[in-house]
């Protein structure tokens, strides 16, 4: 076996945050083998970014030894930095420079000889598909294109070790596939070593080897298939006529012996504890016809099972009570020919859809598809340029405060007061929604307990780990028990465990009659929705139940298409038509 391209030996690193010492890496020892793609996965706050920055020589470890391409980082960080290509989560593109100028700048910074540039540029532009846009300002590229340009700038001088920190977060599925193709081409053709952290488990499954990091410790380093080995015979799918998958999932998730239950389209996928033999008749005594179908384990099953083994079982989400007026099935949101123009640019081009009470309704699409604009119009934050919209019978832009008291809103970015504590944030929103005395105390207790925020009560919200920020934002949006929830990219950047927890809560809310409108760019999350629309460039490409939309992409070669396959087929079909 060739010498490792990157070795960490007993590495520790801690930070001081708001007066407390936080350990980011706690004795990490790994070896990344050369000439292949190694995935680094783990929940938020596991220490992925810290590990990347240590390997790039940007940070120094508190203890332990890091060797990159045979160089000790502590001894010669400059030599390491020049041999390594590092692309941070938010790559430093100069938005006011053109694509070409950005490339030139990074070529200058990395000392690429002028003679070698032309050929390298051509190659990179061809791979990234950015060749027609070299004169465009980087700030005007779409999210996916920006990310590809960032990768191109990192690769201007081919590094021997490429470190990519969550390169595909927020990128549309088509660009995501292209990014992967570029990375693999580098490994194949130039023998590059790649270490890549990701929040998408399907991406981790594509890596040659995966390092699982959790709370600053390595939980395992194996090929993805080897991770799922111990799960053989423990994964099943279940479908019962007459019980919606979501409700079935909620029932199964509470059963002792079931480690994980996940909605997968119209079925529920379960992972059982070792030695537990599920019996449909026992699980669902009221549905004798229920059948369990054994399925091969996949990487995500293994990831979740391993994290849950480590953390113990998560508590079920808190009980939610809402006063919902009207009956299930009433039309709660109505959008008719909705349009929004910004100057000449039509961000939303006359879309129509309806949402019924108690539904989870998804708005799916890549960044820039018009989801957020639609969303802001529905919440009354942006006036529509044309068309009609009604939320619970009101146009929130024109109606009074009482109508707004019935909705809960969670913005795309974390949008609570960063330098106020958790408790101060919650208390403020309780007051803003007019909760007083007994009810205010009750709701505050509910939020702290139900969202397990008690330990962070007096911590500034800005210093919380990402998953807890999201919990806090969700708790704040639910303080006043709204009957309609607007959730804009609620799971963006959140790890799989927190994502499940979020969806479990949202499911429970929907069961209680709350209507939820959710935007997401995680295609697989569409399975949690009752109905959804897929948006691209301000138009609705498809609308319907998740199952129906996936069926449209069904081909002979791919009889079980995923939502991502369906999305790509729709986008490509649209491009072919135009």
């Amino acid at each position, binding site marked *: 076996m060739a010498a490792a391209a990157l070795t960490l030996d007993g590495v520790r690193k801690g930070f001081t945050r708001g007066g407390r010492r936080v350990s980011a890496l706690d004795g990490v020892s790994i070896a990344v083998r050369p000439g292949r793609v190694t995935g680094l996965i783990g929940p938020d706050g596991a220490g992925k970014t810290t590990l990347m920055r240590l390997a790039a020589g940007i940070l120094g470890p508190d203890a332990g030894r890091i060797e990159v391409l045979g160089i000790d980082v502590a001894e010669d960080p400059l030599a390491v930095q020049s041999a390594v290509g590092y692309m941070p989560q938010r790559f430093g593109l100069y938005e006011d420079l053109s694509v070409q100028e950005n490339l030139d700048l990074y070529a200058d910074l990395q000392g690429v000889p002028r003679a070698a540039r032309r050929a390298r540029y051509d190659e990179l532009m061809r791979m990234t598909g950015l060749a027609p846009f070299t004169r465009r300002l980087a700030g005007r590229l779409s999210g996916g294109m920006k990310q590809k340009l960032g990768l191109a700038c990192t690769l201007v001088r081919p590094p021997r070790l490429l470190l990519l920190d969550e390169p595909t977060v927020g990128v549309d599925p088509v660009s995501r596939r292209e990014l992967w193709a570029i990375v693999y081409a580098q490994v194949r053709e130039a023998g590059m070593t790649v270490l890549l952290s990701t929040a998408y488990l399907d991406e981790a499954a594509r890596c040659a080897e995966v390092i699982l990091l959790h709370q600053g410790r390595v939980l395992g380093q194996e090929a993805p298939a080897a991770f799922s080995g111990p799960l053989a015979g423990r994964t099943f799918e279940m479908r019962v006529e007459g019980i919606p998958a979501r409700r079935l999932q909620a029932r199964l998730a509470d059963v002792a012996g079931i480690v994980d239950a996940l909605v997968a389209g119209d079925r529920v996928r379960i992972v059982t504890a070792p030695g537990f033999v599920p019996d449909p008749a026992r699980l669902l005594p009221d549905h004798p016809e229920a059948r369990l179908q054994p399925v091969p384990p996949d990487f995500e099953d293994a990831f979740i099972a391993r994290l849950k083994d480590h953390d113990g079982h998560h508590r079920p989400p808190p009980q939610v009570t809402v006063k919902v007026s009207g009956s299930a099935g009433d039309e709660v949101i109505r959008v008719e020919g909705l349009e929004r123009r910004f100057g000449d640019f039509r961000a939303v081009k006359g879309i129509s859809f309806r949402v019924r009470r108690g539904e989870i309704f998804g708005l799916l699409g890549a960044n820039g598809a018009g989801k957020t604009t639609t969303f802001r119009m529905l919440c009354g934050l942006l006036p529509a340029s044309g068309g009609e919209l009604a939320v619970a019978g009101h146009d929130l832009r024109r109606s009074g405060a009482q109508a707004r008291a019935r909705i809960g809103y969670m913005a795309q970015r974390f949008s609570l*007061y960063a330098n*106020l504590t958790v408790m101060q944030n919650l208390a403020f929103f309780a007051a803003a929604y007019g909760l007083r005395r007994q009810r205010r105390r009750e709701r505050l207790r509910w939020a702290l307990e139900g969202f397990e925020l008690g330990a962070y009560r007096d911590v500034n919200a800005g210093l919380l780990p990402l998953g807890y920020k999201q919990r806090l934002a969700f708790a704040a949006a639910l303080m006043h028990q709204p009957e309609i929830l607007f959730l804009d990219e609620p799971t963006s950047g959140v790890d799989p465990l927190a994502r499940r927890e979020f969806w479990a809560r949202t499911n429970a809310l929907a069961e209680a009659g709350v209507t939820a409108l959710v935007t997401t760019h995680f295609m697989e999350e569409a399975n949690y929705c009752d109905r959804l629309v897929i948006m691209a460039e301000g138009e609705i490409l498809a609308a319907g139940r998740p199952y129906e939309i996936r069926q449209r992409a069904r081909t002979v070669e791919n009889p079980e298409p995923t939502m991502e396959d369906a999305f790509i087929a729709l986008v490509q079909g649209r491009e072919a038509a135009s």
Partner: protein
Amino acid sequence: MPWHILALALKEFRALLRDPRSRIVLIGPPIAQLIVFGYAATFDLNHVPVAIYDEDAGGAGRELIARVAGSPHFEVVARLTREAGIAPLIDDKAVLLVLHLGPRFSADLQRGASAPLQAILDGRNSNTAMLALSYLRTILLDFNRDWAARHGRPAPPAVLQMRAWYNADLDSHWFIIPGIVGLLTLVVTLVVTALSVAREREQGTFDQLLVTPLRPVEILIGKALPGMVIGTLEATFIIVLAVLWFGIPLRGDPGALYAGLSLFLLSAVGIGLMISAIAVTQQQAVLGAFLFLVPAVILSGFATPIANMPEVVQWITYLDPLRYFLIVVRGVFLEGDGYALLLDQYWPMAIIGGLSLATAGWLFRHRMY
């Protein structure tokens, strides 16, 4: 006041005071500006460097020179013996004024004739030169009068008996420091309020606020309250220092001063929130605040009299709330003005405050970005 508006104001205070950078904005500028204006900025000339070219060496000449040297306004830094020495001293700005006594100065005076005296001034800063000259004239006037009395000569035909009302010593601190109350309060209030909405837009919390049942008018009040409270505290701090530390007399009714202050703060908060509602980032908000502040200070009459400005510019000063408040604060401090005399300053500030607050509230929901 409704409970949820108080909660919003409380949140504003917390957001402001828990952020170290905002705390500096509240404490730094008042202290720095008090030092700058309280000590450094003055219209009075003190210790003007002077050179004496005395060809006379007689007793009368020596007496006059002693008077100049003894004045707190002048400091004799050089004595010349030849005429060629004058030019280099003035050119190098070593002295502002050269006093030249001719060879017959004392002799002429003794004879009872009038004795010419030459003053050579550096005219590059005309204002300073005029001031130095007028100090010199005052000294000369005293000298003449005393000389006449001592030598039994008839007194000069007309004698100016001067008395400055409101500021007997003509100490320019009495003029400047009450003005700082207005200037500093404006700076701090404007920056604090200009940042408040912009900070929320930048952090994405403003949308979250707009979807709550709080009405724009309630958000406006909640955001204006902290600015008013902080502005009042800042102003009180400077007023107390002005009286106790700088010894400026507070002759009028403090109630009339605070009535003017609250109307002034209302307009400052309104303009600050207007800037904040337009700005998308905190950086834009701070820039916007200073874009307003600089002309507002220059046009207020803080340093240069409004009456000296061209007429068109004088009309513009009517839009400047600081203009009115400076009249109020100087009036109450030095003249002892009461409510009735200041009424004409109160109502324009009330109108500016009302209009700017209304605009800010409208912009909260209608500003597109």
